[in-house]
């Protein structure tokens, strides 16, 4: 099975990737044989409130980039009173350098589905959607089959495994819009509308899909859930350093000798991961962008810090989706930024002024530097614009897309001006 990605970490360290490449993803029996759907059985025998407590105590935080504590998100939705609640699995993985969700869906679809069902049970959602980006045809195919198989075995449907819990799960497709990774834009897309984010508040757990309480979780986050329920929150908490429990799938891309996918714990440093699994940097290290196109730029010094939440917070950065994009000495910072600028100009939904206009103007300014015509006032304008976008844009795209530019201004201003 070709996953268009090499898994570099050792099998013994794997939790989420344990079945990938080892079992037939199209076979539900293979998943069950490997211990699958035990978590669901256990969850259904618990009170939904207890399920949430277990996840809260585990310390699991969102793996989509925002790192929000999952248990707390579930609590909001569980507490909301409505005649219908939804759970949505955000599989619109669009962050450049990221493929963990694709691999999880293509390689072990039932792990994700099990997580969704448990989450639905915990918050009281009788309907769920997994929103898969339109370009991930293989994922859509695999998950669709997996849902059908799960239905046949009674893991999805009415009175699941003899309980009183009913649950329907649908696959919704994306149409080629990175912005639909934003939870409210995703909701709009499922509703058959343009993928333009909504203002928050109100938040989805209060007003979500079709106005009903909705919890939106990332694929990798939900893939952790069956294991937490099956093995208990303490098992999860003990993995990795205190305060940043569990495993994370990281991706090594760019100037790495052996690019690939790594599942490991948060006490690792990015440089350590590159050297242990990626056979080191290809060339001399210049900088890395961690977390996707809106990720922070890491200097060599920063690369030596563990990616715990505390350390990241101290450095005022985030590991985002876990993509580690390495650039060696041959890479030109202006060219690097120009790719990012073009990406956001193309992906901005266009709803709010700062992002719609700002992403275009940022691309124009960087282009000036590409042609060697940039000036100091251009950079001052870029910085001013970026700072406004960071605070005034309507959604995470507009607010975060300026990070690489602001970081580059901090570390590479001279190089940019000299271009």
């Amino acid at each position, binding site marked *: 099975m070709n996953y268009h990605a090499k898994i570099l970490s050792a099998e013994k360290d794997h939790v989420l990737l344990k079945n990938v490449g080892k079992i037939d993803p199209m076979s539900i029996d293979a998943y069950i044989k490997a211990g699958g759907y035990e978590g669901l059985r256990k969850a259904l025998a618990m009170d939904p409130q207890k399920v949430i407590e277990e996840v809260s105590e585990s310390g699991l935080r969102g793996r989509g980039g925002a790192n929000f504590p999952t248990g707390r998100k579930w609590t909001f939705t569980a507490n909301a009173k409505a005649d219908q609640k939804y759970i949505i699995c955000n599989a619109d993985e669009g962050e450049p350098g990221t493929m963990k969700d694709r691999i999880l869906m293509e390689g072990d679809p039932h792990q994700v589905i099990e997580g969704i069902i448990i989450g639905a049970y915990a918050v009281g959602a009788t309907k769920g959607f997994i929103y898969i980006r339109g370009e991930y045809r293989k994922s859509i195919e695999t998950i669709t089959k997996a849902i059908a198989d799960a239905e046949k075995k009674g893991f999805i449907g009415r009175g699941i495994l003899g309980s009183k819990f009913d649950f329907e799960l649908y696959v919704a497709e994306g149409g080629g819009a990175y912005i639909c990774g934003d939870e409210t834009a995703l909701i709009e897309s499922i509703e058959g509308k343009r993928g333009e984010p909504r203002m928050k508040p109100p938040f989805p757990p209060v007003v979500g899909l079709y106005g009903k309480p909705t919890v939106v979780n990332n694929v990798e986050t939900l893939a952790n859930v069956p294991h937490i329920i099956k093995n208990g929150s303490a098992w999860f908490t003990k993995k990795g350093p205190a305060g940043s429990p569990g495993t994370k799938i990281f991706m090594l891309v760019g100037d790495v000798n052996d690019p690939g996918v790594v599942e490991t714990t948060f006490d690792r440093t990015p440089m350590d991961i590159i050297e242990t699994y990626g056979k080191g940097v290809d060339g001399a290290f210049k900088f890395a962008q961690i977390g996707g196109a809106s990720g922070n730029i890491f200097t060599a010094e920063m690369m030596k810090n563990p990616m715990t939440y505390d350390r990241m917070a101290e450095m005022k950065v985030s590991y985002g989706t876990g993509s580690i994009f390495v650039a060696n000495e041959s890479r030109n910072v202006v060219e690097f930024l120009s790719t990012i600028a073009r990406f956001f100009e193309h992906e901005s939904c266009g709803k709010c002024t700062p992002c719609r206009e700002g992403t275009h*103007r940022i691309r124009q300014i960087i282009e000036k530097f590409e042609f060697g015509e940039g000036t100091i006032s251009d950079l001052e304008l870029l910085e001013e614009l970026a700072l406004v976008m960071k605070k005034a844009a309507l959604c995470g795209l507009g607010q975060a897309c300026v990070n690489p530019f602001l970081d580059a201004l901090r570390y590479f201003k001279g190089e940019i001006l000299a271009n």
Partner: protein
Amino acid sequence: MASKKVTLHIDGIEVTVPADFSIMQAAKVAGIDIPVLCWHNDLREEGNCRICVVEVEGQPTYQPSCAYKVADGMKVKVNTPELLKARKMVLELILSRHNMDCLNCERNTHCELQTLADKYGMRENRFENEPSELPIDASSIVIRDSSKCINCGRCIRACNEVQTAYALDWWGRGYEKMVLPTAGKPLAETTCINCGQCINVCPTGALMERDDTAMVWEWIHDPEIHVVVQTAPAIRASVGEACGLEPGYLSTGKLAGVLKQLGFDKVMDTDFTADLTIIEEGHEFLHRVTKAVRDGDKKVALPLLTSCSPGWIKFMETFYPDFIPNISTCKSPQQMFGALAKTYYAEKAKIDPAKIRVVSIMPCTAKKFECNRPEMCDSGYQDVDAVLTTRELARMIKLHGINFEMVKESKFDDPMGITTGAADIFANTGGVMEAALRTVYELVTGDPIPTMHFEPVRGFDGIKEAEIKIEKTTKEYEFLKGVTVKVAVAHSTGMARKLLDAVRKGEKSYHFIEIMGCPGGCIGGGGQPRPTSWKIEAARAEAIYKEDDSRELRKSHVNPGIQQLYKEFLGKPNSHKAHELLHTHYYPRESVR
């Protein structure tokens, strides 16, 4: 409704406001005006322009004050250096995509964007000016200039959420996103009903009505042409506002005066034919009710629906053509006037109708479409030659440098200038219904209607209902004894849709329905002064009711001019001649295009 109050601080000023207030509303109470562009009083807030952003203590990013609700103990900052910088940047970005040729724009000096640019001291733009290069869409009454569009989306909300005409929407994504009619076609080829609500909410000159003043000036200055002007009921309560006076400024006498000053040859009143409409439609209604109740005719088309709102008529033809049999065949007062001006009036004044031009002053943009409907030429000529909106009239007054407040009061000319209060209230939602009831009630019961303030049909509720139990009747209408007449009133085509869906499904049934295409009725029309809001419209509506209250004659059937018209010219209501000149027909239009 929350009567609970909260206390918060805005820029250090303490205010106590209802708990469901937005920060923007609370700031107003604190005496601070927060700028807006995409927010509009009468529309759902979208928070996309970001010019109203404020700092809320505890929030990492700025919040849109138009939508963010207050909370007890909240601390808000509106005017920090960073926030002011952010607002200026937002404006700079918007202006960098904007057509900067203000001097040649119809909204010069009264444009929301200009006002903000002035407020924020914009002196230079560091971004290259890149306005849209789409050609101006002048295919329809509503003219679109994309180079002036700031992507606020107000027009889209008005068209889709308030009016549900589904003619405008976003196209594309990101920097190239723009407002376009359906499928990118010229507006005239879509389901646009010409209601002009999009124009009313547009903050810039991106949306304007077609300006017909040049044509009208030509006629006025042509000694050969006899220009007759008629004025809609709504104008007397809005022309003052359009000239800079306060909303609700009532100026019937000054209106007649200024029209004479501008050079119109004959200044008469659409109110006259509004009274006429009541007589014609009242009898049409009773005719149908008689067939249904007395004769048990099951095929009679009830409810009867009013037909004086051309935006509503096009909406009906497009989305509810199954109701065509139910629509009153009466023309609108504007069109009745035109047909009579070139026949009845022309005869009386001994003027060649070929030399008459009928101009109407309307709060409405759809009337421009109505007067050009091919069937509106029963006089043998185009019955109404041109329609000018309240805004266009104001432009004419401005051009002549006339100080409206100083205009000497005058009277409307005969024979089509004698009017009643029942005609005045046509301007308000519920007014046509109330005027009709004043006449129909008396025809059926023999007694005048007990109140001149029929409250159930007054006010701004989207759909209003009323029931009138008939106890006493004349001999002719004995069969109506004990019958409860059910009426309904809806304003804005969005509410019309809601009401008609219910009628279609059989959930609701009525005898008589008044529908006005615009929110608030004609006083909220697409040609009315800008800016507008429910508060302003309420002021206009009140002025109209005040005018009615001040009148000696308040029932259409006691109008001596109308009585004379029937005696001399038409014969009796719904006569053959009346049908020829004063009634029309409708045709279905494609609903998906």
